[in-house]
C-alpha cells in the first residue's frame, strides 16, 4: 500500500482557513501541484489578492506578495519585468479582478504581459459577507441585492473570458470549473498550460475557474455543486477562448 497523493510541494503543509466546501482549496492544490510538477516552484513569485484568498500568501510554497485590491496584474507586471527569469502568477477573485481591478486586468492582457492569472469566479464577494459581484447572476440574491440581481438596477453580469477574447494581447484564455472531480482534473490541465505558456514566453494567460461559495450562496456544499452545473455553466460556458496556437495561425495567415 503506497500513498499516491502526497501533499504538493507547491503548497505549505497547513490547514486551509476557507469555509467548508469552498472551491479555493481545490484550486490551491492544483496550483501547488503544477508548481511542483513543472519544476518552477523555486523561481515562482505569486501575487495574493484582497478577499478570501488573501491567505494565499501563507499557503503557496513560493515567494509571495500581497497587494491592494484589484492591482494584482500590475504588481505581477512589475515583478515580471524586473525579474523575467521568474514565473509570476496573480491569484484573484471576481470582485478583485472583474470589479475594482478591471482596468489592470484588461491592460495587462492588452500588453500581453507574460504572466499567469488564476481567476476564481464564484459570483459573489466572500470575505466581506456575500455582496453582489460583477459576475453575480441575474436573479441571484446577495447582501447588497437582497431581492436578487435586477438588470435594471444592478446591470448585467460580466463574462471575463468573452470580454478579453477581443484582445490581441491575450494569449491563452480558458474557462473551467471545479464542481466535480472530472472538472477539477480539467482545471489542472488548464492551469498547467497557463504556466507552460509563460515558461515559453507566449504572453498573457488567464484561467477562469467557476468555483463554489456555499457561505455566500447560503447553500450546502452539495447544493453549491449543483448550482454551478445548473445555473452558472449556462451563463459561463466552459472551454478555450483563446490559445497561442490560434494566435500563431492568425498571425501566420496574415503575413
Amino acid at each position, binding site marked *: 500500500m*503506497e500513498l*499516491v497523493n502526497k501533499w504538493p510541494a507547491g503548497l505549505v503543509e497547513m*490547514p486551509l482557513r476557507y469555509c467548508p*466546501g469552498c472551491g479555493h482549496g481545490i484550486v490551491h492544490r492544483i496550483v501547488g501541484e503544477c508548481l511542483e510538477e513543472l519544476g518552477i516552484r523555486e523561481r515562482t513569485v505569486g501575487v495574493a489578492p484582497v478577499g478570501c484568498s488573501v491567505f494565499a500568501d501563507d499557503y503557496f510554497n513560493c515567494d509571495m506578495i500581497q497587494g491592494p485590491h484589484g492591482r494584482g496584474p500590475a504588481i505581477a507586471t512589475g515583478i515580471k519585468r524586473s525579474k523575467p527569469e521568474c514565473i509570476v502568477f496573480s491569484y484573484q477573485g471576481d470582485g478583485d479582478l472583474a470589479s475594482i481591478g478591471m482596468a489592470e486586468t484588461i491592460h495587462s492582457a492588452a500588453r500581453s504581459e507574460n504572466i499567469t492569472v488564476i481567476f476564481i469566479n464564484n459570483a459573489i464577494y466572500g470575505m466581506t459577507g456575500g455582496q453582489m459581484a460583477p459576475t453575480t447572476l441575474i436573479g441571484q440574491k446577495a447582501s447588497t441585492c437582497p431581492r436578487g440581481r435586477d438588470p435594471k438596477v444592478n446591470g448585467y453580469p460580466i463574462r471575463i473570458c468573452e470580454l478579453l477574447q477581443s484582445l490581441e494581447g491575450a494569449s491563452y484564455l480558458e474557462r473551467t470549473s471545479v464542481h466535480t472531480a472530472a472538472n477539477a482534473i480539467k482545471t489542472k490541465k488548464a492551469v498547467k498550460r497557463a504556466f507552460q505558456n509563460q515558461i515559453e514566453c507566449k504572453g498573457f494567460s488567464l484561467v477562469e475557474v467557476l468555483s463554489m461559495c456555499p457561505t455566500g450562496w447560503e447553500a*450546502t456544499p452539495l447544493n453549491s455543486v449543483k448550482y454551478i452545473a445548473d445555473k452558472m455553466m449556462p451563463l459561463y460556458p466552459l472551454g478555450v477562448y483563446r490559445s497561442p496556437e490560434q494566435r500563431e495561425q492568425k498571425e501566420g495567415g496574415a503575413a
Partner: protein
Amino acid sequence: MPEIKVNERLCKGCELCTSACPKQCIAMSDKFSTTGYYPAMLAKQECCIGCGLCAQICPDLAIEVYK
C-alpha cells in the same frame, strides 16, 4: 486492497467527497471532530478502488489515497 484515510484535523465535513465517490463508499461520521465538524470516513473499505476522485474534489487536502 486500496483505501483512503481522512485527516480529521483537516476535514471540514463538506461532503463533496461523498458525491465524487463512484462506489459510494464514503460516509460522514456522527461524531464531532476536535475542530467542530462531522468528518468524512471510509464506511465500506472493501469497495474502495483507489480511484482518488474524492481527493480531486476535496478542498482541504484531507484525503490520503493508498494503492
